[in-house]
């Protein structure tokens, strides 16, 4: 399962940095370059790298397919809830919380939270679709403990 030793070793070294970079991009989206979407895709690319280098078992140990299904709905619901919370201030999508001090992480009202919600949605849904594309066609050959996951995808 997976690729050669060199690839595995380098992946181990790099993967932490990739995740850190992704999280940084998400959290500082409202202060500098980036945002929920770009950061989310970077995190997903990290998962894809794990999957390509170590095989899908390792990736599933980091992120269960069932969990990511719930997370993708959860991210979408969170973003919609943020939109509806604007009614507290009087209008749909009103950025009602205190804007805070400029150039600080905790500023700009709901923008950082919206970024986080979007990134959760992106990470989990693109992860799911990648798993579906990878497992597609491999169903008949496999059996064992991840057959459960595959069945979950194909029958839900």
């Amino acid at each position: 399962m997976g690729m050669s030793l060199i690839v595995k070793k380098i992946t181990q070294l790099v993967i932490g940095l990739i995740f850190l970079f992704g999280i940084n991009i998400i959290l500082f989206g409202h202060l500098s370059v980036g945002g929920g979407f770009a950061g989310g895709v970077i995190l997903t690319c990290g998962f894809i790298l794990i999957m390509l280098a170590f095989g899908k078992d390792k990736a599933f140990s980091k992120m269960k397919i069932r969990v990511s299904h719930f997370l993708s709905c959860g991210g979408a619901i969170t973003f919609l809830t943020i939109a509806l919370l604007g009614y507290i201030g009087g209008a749909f999508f009103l950025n009602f919380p205190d804007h805070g001090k400029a150039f600080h992480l905790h500023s700009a009202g709901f923008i950082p939270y919206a970024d986080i919600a979007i990134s959760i949605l992106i990470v989990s849904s693109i992860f799911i679709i990648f798993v579906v594309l990878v497992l597609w066609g491999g169903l008949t050959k496999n059996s064992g403990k991840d057959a459960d996951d595959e069945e979950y995808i194909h029958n839900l």
Partner: protein
Amino acid sequence: MTIYLMCLFLFAMGLYCLVAKRHLIKKIIGVAILDYAVNLFLVLIGYKEGGVPPILFKDMSQQVLSRQSVDPLPQALVLTSIVIGLGVLIMMVSIALRLYEKYKTFDTSEISRLKG
């Protein structure tokens, strides 16, 4: 003006690929090129000569941003458009894989059980 036309030439090539090529993956590539061309067109529209990115850093004054920044609105639109393009591409690839499974080919001239 010339650069707009070059961009539209890219657009026309995407269309050509869609019409003239019969391979499913090539058609998907054509749609991707169309997306690139339109996204580029939107960003070109918002460009200002000698423009700076529309991001305010701590050591930068508000006047510099107001006077020299490129147009931020098309960039926001393109961000949305890139995501939509990704979504359409995912759908297309999944349908192409299913079609390959059913017909054992990617050639659209052989994938024609529907008449007319």
